[in-house]
């Protein structure tokens, strides 16, 4: 970590034998780097969209799975499947499904959209694949939170004549708050640092419209071998995730009162 910080203030181009201290130059360049802002924008959009949809879907699934029905145990296992498949494998699978020419999706919908080749759809395809993969994670954690709510509260509320919606808004949600915040924290950090899900699907294209910060840092570090600037990007990612964590922890602590 310290070495990355050290490198981020240098100009390190090993293949040119350049290695010298440049202070905050890299950081100033970062602020004016269009590609950085593009990647940051893409990453924020990706994170906001996928985390919010995952939360709503995960909550819905968790609530459904709390009810008693036949094959409840098996359903819980099935729901966990997408999370269990390695990201790279599922991304490859989605790459074939989203294929504009012979992909299953276009066949099912009866349309001809070039999902991964169109600047607008590519980002949403990546978001969709990510939602598919990580909603089970959200659902499982919220399920655990739901089980911690004492049943007596529900019984008391029904006796008082409260309807389902009142129960949900007045009892379930407030008591789930810490669990929801924790799951949001995990998911936001993961979504912000997403790499393999998007890289395998689109490689950052078309035209860098799906390039996230991690992908940009990877390309700068390992393909252009600019170890100095690449480290600066890594520090930027670190700072952003730090901010996100701090924000959530604030919210968590605030609720304790």
């Amino acid at each position, binding site marked *: 970590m310290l070495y990355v910080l050290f490198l981020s203030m240098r100009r390190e*181009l*090993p*293949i*040119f*034998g*350049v290695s010298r201290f440049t202070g905050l130059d890299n950081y100033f360049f970062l602020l004016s780097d269009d590609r950085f802002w593009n990647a940051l924008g893409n990453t924020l959009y990706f994170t906001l969209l996928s985390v919010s949809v995952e939360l709503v879907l995960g909550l819905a699934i968790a609530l459904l799975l709390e009810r008693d029905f036949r094959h409840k145990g098996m359903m819980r296992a099935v729901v966990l499947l997408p999370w269990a498949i390695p990201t790279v494998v599922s991304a490859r699978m989605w790459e074939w499904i989203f*294929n*504009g*020419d*012979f992909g299953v999706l276009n066949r099912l919908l009866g349309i001809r959209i*070039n999902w*991964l*080749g*169109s*600047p607008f759809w590519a980002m949403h395809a990546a978001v969709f694949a990510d939602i598919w993969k990580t909603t089970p994670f959200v659902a499982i954690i919220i399920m655990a939170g739901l089980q911690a709510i004492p049943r007596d509260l529900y019984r008391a509320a029904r006796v008082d004549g409260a309807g389902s919606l009142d129960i949900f808004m007045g009892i379930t949600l407030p008591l789930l708050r810490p669990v929801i915040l924790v799951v949001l924290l995990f998911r936001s950090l993961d979504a912000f640092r997403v790499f393999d899900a998007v890289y395998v699907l*689109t*490689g*950052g*294209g*078309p*035209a*860098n*419209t799906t*390039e996230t910060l991690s992908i940009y840092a990877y*390309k*700068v570090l*390992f*393909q*252009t*071998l*600019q170890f100095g600037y690449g480290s600066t990007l890594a520090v930027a990612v670190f700072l952003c995730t730090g901010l996100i964590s701090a924000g959530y922890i604030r919210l968590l602590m605030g609720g304790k009162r």
Partner: protein
Amino acid sequence: MKWAAVLPILVLLAMIAGCDRKDGNDRNSGTVIVFKHGKIAGDPIILRGLLDSFEAENPGIKLRDETLPSSSDEQHQFYVINLEGKSADFDVLSLDVIWVPEFARAGWLSDLSRLFPPDERNDFFPGPVSAVTWERKVFAVPWYIDAGLLYYRCDILEKYGLSPPRTWPELVAQARRITSAEKGLYGFIWQGKQYEGLVCNALEYLRSNNGDVLRNGEVAIDSPENVAALSFMRDLIARYGVSPPLVTTASEETTRHIFGNGRALFMRNWPYAWNLFQDKGSMVRGKVGVAPLPAFQVGRSAPTLGGWQLGVNRYSRHQEAAFRLVRFLTAPEAQKLLCLKVGYKPTRVSLYADRELQKSQPFIASLCDIFMTARPRPVTPYYMMFTQVMQPELSAALAGVRPPEAALRSAGRQMRHILGGVR
């Protein structure tokens, strides 16, 4: 009871004693050298057989061959990390044609000029030779060669009485005429996904219009010829409708599948696809022809050079043995064997006149002319940075995000910044 405790310790000791890797010297049988390369197509037994003959010819040298993932980028990452750390864990490495100037500039490759005297040099194709030469010294020896080809359905062209197009406008005209008559057929498919393959494709248009990326060390990517060529590429999709929009996500295998299922008339791809089309069970067996890529003017075809070279790690402790291996693997006998058994095309011009090769792969004679005109991507240590600039800009032009002129201007600006900024 005591054995239960002692036995695992004995096993552990035996394992530690056997882990004598750092030295590279097997106490009993001389030097051990390591050959690092990407996955070789076909049966690994073929390469192992070749290496065994090397060992037989060179008693005292033992060979270990280690494979890396087949993705070029992943291999690049491996080499960069290890060579920057001055690793001596491997002696001979296989290099993608675009890495040689970069690795040479970084001082990671041994100078192989004496393995490659001028008379030897003449037997190799000029494209690969210039790709492995940096500051008048040779840092790798070309091992096998690849170049962009035009694949076409000879049965369909014959039906319409046409011969393969020699200019791009001719290709468009033929494709439009045929696809309006035949249903379920794409006109022309190629690789337009945002990756290295896109740069290979794009250069075939830019250079066949007399443009280039670098001219005398100066950035020339935003020239009017290049803008016209790139606009033509975009028009293939947007205006002429000859290429489907899916080419903007297509890589080699995607297009190979589509063409192999008989759903395209023309395809641009590397020579490897030919063997797969001629396999038993292939839908297009016997119906595929191969021709040089068209150009904007007859005779200006500019296929992009691919292929892999063999180099020696400068930090290797067995330079002589490594040199011998490189010499052996690039000798005519080894190249011929790889061609016959694996389909890798030789880098030695003389082999294309070999009777046995011609009998086994009849179209190899026509490939010889194409390989003669194959042009390497810009031979500069900045290339990896340049391609990272070009890929998104070219992709932006093809996807309609930015007009070709703006894309190339932006690319030019960034590339000049890179050239000026390395101080």
